[in-house]
């Protein structure tokens, strides 16, 4: 009794139209060789030029894939049924246009090329990839540097800021020599020095509801390194609408978070945080501070996840949120579920186009402070005329230690409500902080408590150091 080989429809024309062929053999390899010998034209469709079975030809012995058995050595015995089952693959021509690697690139990426999971094919995927970095700051710096070094072919950068000295403690793509210049120019120069093979596309603009879709559409993956909620929701929604993965990272003081929001395969940012926090509740890095190494760690995780997505290797952070605590040096992981009621990626979305994210995050709805603010020069003049004027520094004691205005009284914002009794309601009061945001909150507290003659120093102690007393250090 022989072994029965079931022939799939596409191959039947080569075996005289039969749907099954009987052959004698002891293992699969021998069987296939005999089949190809008997029906010569079949050979090219079953085997590649190197003699190996073509990748889309699947052979089953009694319903078990020979890849799970002993491949070609899988024994067969009379009475067995062997099935040749097609897998069907294909695609558009994009990938064939995957660029080849130059000799210089082969040398540059040699440590990638010898990694089995990258190899030449993977490196060409990296070269063909287009990654958009939103923000060239703390997170964007390490992400851009590592992605450029890894050979990602095109990096898009969105930023509209200029390099400030306070950026250099963590935004390692910039340098002392580029302080005062646009971050995009500074980043582009550094990337081109690191790896001239990378094409840098710059978008010197704030990402808005008007331009986000047009910018993001042109890229494969977005790495979100923004520091504010309106942009974060904007990036999320645009990525969901365009079907792009959004590699997310965020940092605060000593803690960071990272995830990959890819609505096609898992939850999006809105599944995790349906609503933004009330404005002012979560301080920015400028207000709250951040350890400079932290964005290096989180931004590097973003670069790693981006590369994994491009290569299609490993397990991406889709559906998982990594929480990093630098002080404990601890990584924790939360499983994220897709929210069936998600307004943007759920089955019945209510957000089907980009909205006004400033309004969504409650920004712009803040009360107007016209007339409640005073400039540094005005304060100096008034203070000279009226030494009785009370200047309250509402920053934290450790900030006071860095620098302070002589004569100002330190009452940290958090203690202000319980220390109102220390204040004389008849005196003119000016509140100040670092940049002028917390002092407005202090002003509200004082007004609500019945203090009428209160103003806030616009631009904070920073404006004072620039315009009135250059002997003070800025921070």
């Amino acid at each position, binding site marked *: 009794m022989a072994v029965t080989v079931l022939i799939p429809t596409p191959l039947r024309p080569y075996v005289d139209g039969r749907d099954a062929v009987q052959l004698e053999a002891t293992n699969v390899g021998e069987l296939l060789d005999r089949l190809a010998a008997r029906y010569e034209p079949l050979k090219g469709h079953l085997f590649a030029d190197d003699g190996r079975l073509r*990748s889309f030809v699947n052979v089953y012995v009694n319903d078990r894939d020979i890849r799970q058995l002993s491949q070609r050595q899988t024994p067969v015995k009379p009475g067995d049924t062997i099935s040749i089952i097609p897998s069907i693959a294909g695609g558009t*021509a994009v990938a064939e246009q995957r660029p080849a690697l130059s000799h210089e690139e082969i040398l540059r990426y040699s440590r990638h090329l010898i990694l089995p999971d990258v190899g030449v094919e993977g490196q060409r995927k990296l070269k063909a990839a287009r990654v958009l970095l939103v923000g060239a700051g703390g997170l964007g710096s390490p992400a851009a540097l590592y992605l450029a070094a890894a050979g990602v072919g095109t990096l898009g950068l969105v930023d509209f800021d200029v390099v400030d000295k306070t950026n250099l403690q963590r935004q390692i793509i910039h340098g002392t020599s580029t302080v005062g210049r646009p971050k995009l120019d500074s980043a582009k120069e550094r990337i081109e020095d690191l790896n001239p093979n990378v094409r840098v596309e710059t978008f010197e603009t704030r990402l808005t509801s008007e331009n986000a879709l047009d910018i993001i559409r042109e890229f494969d993956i977005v790495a979100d390194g923004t520091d504010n909620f309106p942009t974060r929701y904007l990036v999320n929604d645009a990525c969901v609408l365009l079907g792009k993965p959004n590699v997310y990272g965020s940092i605060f003081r000593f803690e960071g978070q990272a995830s990959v929001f890819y609505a096609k395969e898992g939850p999006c940012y809105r599944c995790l945080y349906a609503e933004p926090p009330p404005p002012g509740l979560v301080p920015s890095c400028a207000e709250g501070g951040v350890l400079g190494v932290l964005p290096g760690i989180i931004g590097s995780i973003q670069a790693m996840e981006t590369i994994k997505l491009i290569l299609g290797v490993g397990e991406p952070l889709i559906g998982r949120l990594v929480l990093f605590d630098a002080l404990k040096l601890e990584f924790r992981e939360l499983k994220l579920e897709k929210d069936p009621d998600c307004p943007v990626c759920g089955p019945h979305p209510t957000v089907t186009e980009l909205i006004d994210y400033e309004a969504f995050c409650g920004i712009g709805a803040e009360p107007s402070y016209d007339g409640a603010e005073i400039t540094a020069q005005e304060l100096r003049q008034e203070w000279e005329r009226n030494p009785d004027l009370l200047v309250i520094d509402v920053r934290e004691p450790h900030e006071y230690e860095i620098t302070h205005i002589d004569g100002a009284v330190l009452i940290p914002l958090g203690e202000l409500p319980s220390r109102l009794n220390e204040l004389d309601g008849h005196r003119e009061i000016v509140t100040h902080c670092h940049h002028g945001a917390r002092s407005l909150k202090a002003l509200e507290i004082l007004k609500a408590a019945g203090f009428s003659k209160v103003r806030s120093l616009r631009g904070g102690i920073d404006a004072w150091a620039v315009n009135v007393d250059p002997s003070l250090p800025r921070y």
Partner: protein
Amino acid sequence: MTLILEPRHAAAIGRHGEADYPAEACGLVGGTVEGDRKVAVQVVPLANQRSDSLRNRYLIDPQAFRRAEAQLARDGLEVIGVYHSHPDHPPAPSAFDQENAWPWLSYLIVAVARGRAGDLKSWVLSDDRSGFVEEPVTIEERKVVWQ
């Protein structure tokens, strides 16, 4: 051979391509062979099983192929073709399509430009695997004759 499609088949393939845009959509075409005509009877949409590069790759694994084939066989049909979409690309086979192609099967490709289905063309691999040959497609309403 000539591939005979009904308007609803062409429409179903276009709709699937639009629904999965910008990923590639794929599926099988079941039908019968009548002389030198491959007559489509049923379009079987399948999930693209690629976990990466969905925008320019599709995959129907052997298990899915087998299930669909068995289902078609119950109705006396066989797999006569495969369809897939080319998001924002013309409906011509790529080198990757050719590398992975099976002989005899009709490879239907629908172009989906910016989410809208356009041209639909059918291709067959040449016997020596050297290239794809465009296959004539006739789209006609089938008259059902009740006997």
